[in-house]
């Protein structure tokens, strides 16, 4: 297990290095290398998670270490899909360091044995966790794309081009990809919330219990719902959409980590360390 984590981190670091080299040198091969190394890293990472799964028999989200690891895995996976589909090479400059940093944090956190509980064998709970994590990973990438969009738009508007102008793709591609990430994220977040409600009903007998995590998830959901609604009705795109995606990601981070660390609630145990 430890060796797998080390291999994973190593692959992510190499991939990050390749993407940074690509940013500066603009050689297409570097970007391809970065992509394949990241894919290799994801394989190691998957093995890590599976080995955790088989050892304990439940989805490894028992403590902060495992939760973050799963989140990084989701970000990496979603990134691979997005890059494959949109050929948005430069996004690696955001995704690769992100997963690397998270995984380094993971490796530094103690792997306290989670208390064995049977709740993670429940279908609804597993669906809830998987959907939420992949959805949040999509939102994370949408946030990254929002930042890239603002950088590029600023370069074009202020007519100060130099470094990033050449290296970033067109505004249109950044916008469309960001939108796609938000659509995917929103769909999965919705699914995640629904499965969560069903699970809550089956365990606690009620759908909603005003737990801080629930409240903040609701806020996150409403935020992205507004973003999508405005885009579909009045055509919110470009700058506004990018800013919203970044704000959304900030709120999401708080929902994901801040709520657990700062507020009390029944999701708290997943981020114990």
């Amino acid at each position, binding site marked *: 297990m430890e060796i797998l984590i080390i291999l994973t981190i190593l692959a992510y670091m190499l991939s990050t290095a390749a993407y940074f080299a690509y940013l500066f040198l603009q050689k297409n091969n570097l970007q391809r290398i970065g992509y394949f190394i990241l894919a290799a890293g994801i394989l190691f990472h998957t093995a890590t998670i599976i080995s955790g799964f088989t050892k304990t028999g439940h989805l490894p989200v028992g403590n902060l270490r495992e939760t973050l690891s799963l989140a990084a895995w989701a970000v990496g996976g979603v990134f691979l899909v997005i890059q494959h589909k949109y050929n948005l090479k430069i996004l690696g400059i955001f995704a690769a360091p992100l997963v690397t940093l998270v995984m380094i944090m993971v490796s530094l956190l103690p792997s306290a044995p989670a208390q064995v509980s049977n709740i993670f064998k429940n279908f609804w709970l597993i669906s809830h966790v998987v959907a939420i994590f992949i959805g949040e990973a999509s939102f994370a990438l949408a946030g990254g794309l929002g930042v890239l969009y603002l950088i590029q738009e600023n370069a*074009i508007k202020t*007519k100060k081009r*130099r470094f990033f102008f050449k290296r970033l*793709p067109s505004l*249109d591609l950044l916008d469309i990809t960001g939108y796609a990430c938000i659509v995917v994220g929103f769909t999965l977040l919705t699914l995640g919330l629904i499965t969560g409600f069903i699970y809550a009903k089956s365990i606690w007998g009620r759908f909603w219990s005003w737990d801080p995590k629930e409240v903040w998830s609701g806020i996150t959901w409403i935020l992205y719902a507004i973003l999508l609604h405005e885009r579909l009705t*009045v055509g919110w*795109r*470009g*700058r*506004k959409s990018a800013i919203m995606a970044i704000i959304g990601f900030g709120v999401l981070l708080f929902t994901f980590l801040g709520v657990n660390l700062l507020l009390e609630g029944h999701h708290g145990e997943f981020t114990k360390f």
Partner: protein
Amino acid sequence: MSDIVLVGINHKTAPVELRECIAFSKEESITAVQTLLRQPDLNEVILFSTCNRVEVLFVTDNKSRAISTTKEFIADFNKIPLEQFENVLYIHEGDEAVRHVFRVASSLDSMVVGEPQILGQIKEAYRTASGLNTSGVILNRLLHRTFFVAKRIRTETGIGDRAVSISFAAVELGRKIFGTLEGKTVLLIGAGEMAELSVEHLIRNKAGDIYVANRTFENGVALAKEFNGQALRFEEISDCLKFIDIIISSTGASDFVITRDQVKGVLRARRSRPLFFIDIAVPRDIDPAVNRLSNSYVYDIDDLKDVVDENMEDRQQEAVKAGRIVDEAVINFRQWHASLDVVPTIIALRNKVEAIAQAEIKKTLQSNKFPDSGVEALNKMANSLTNKILHDPTIFLKKNGMLADRSLYIDAVRKLFKLDE
């Protein structure tokens, strides 16, 4: 050993008045290379003639005579006294000539560094020469290396990547905003060479419908016809902003043709799809405040000039990288060219045959038992075989009796015996 020499003038050494007197048309260059090749000292000839340069590249065994022959030929052919242009002629020999050809074809010596046409022009000149058989072993090899170097520079450096004209810069910016220009509608307001050129570039990039608005409707109709577009009345511009993506403006108006409020009014109807204004007019046609509206981008002529300047600078930097590739290629070519000399070829041939003999002796000795005297006899026999086999070819190569082009035979020998590997 024969020498490679290049004699020529270009835009850096001679003014256009002189260059146009010396330029060769396509038909003229056919006669020119044939005439030059008939001169006793020129073994191979290629002639490059573009609007920015006239250069004669040749291979000779007698440099000084060949150079003066060529100079006189240029003067005679163009009926212009030699004194008038002799001081602007440059003469490159050996490595310098090779380097010059590489640099020219890679567009490092061009007026606009990195412009792509020159390579095509050189290829054309080479096709003419090889079709008439005025190029031989050395120039064929040199030109093939040249095309390789030029291609390498184009792919490995960014020398031709960035737009260095106003109209291309506009297209490049459009791509950064829209991704693809395919299907984007274009409105041309007014007329003018630069504006029309931009429209043409956009059309070449598969832009969608073209609209033309002109104060004089008739002029607009005429211009619209050229672009297969549609003419609009000036008053319609406001309305059309709803569906137009790229606006190129070049009118003589003293006031803004498109104001901030006009654009702001259509943003919602456009569902915030981006708008790109290219303002080529002086004084400006588009209110600069439009640039501050969301998803609207305004570039005026100065902004575009800045883009071009930056890109030019980039090209200069890339040219340094390209210079390195050229240096490397010059060294490689020098090695090959030197190998075409007689002595190294004879040595290489002898080494090759001796190596084969030694290898076979070793093999034979391994599988058979010979007494010492037998081994000695075997070695002796191998030596005399080697000498006998090499005798005639060596005499042939050493004698200056080889007809016409010595490099042709040397090249053949090197290829027959695979001496270059």
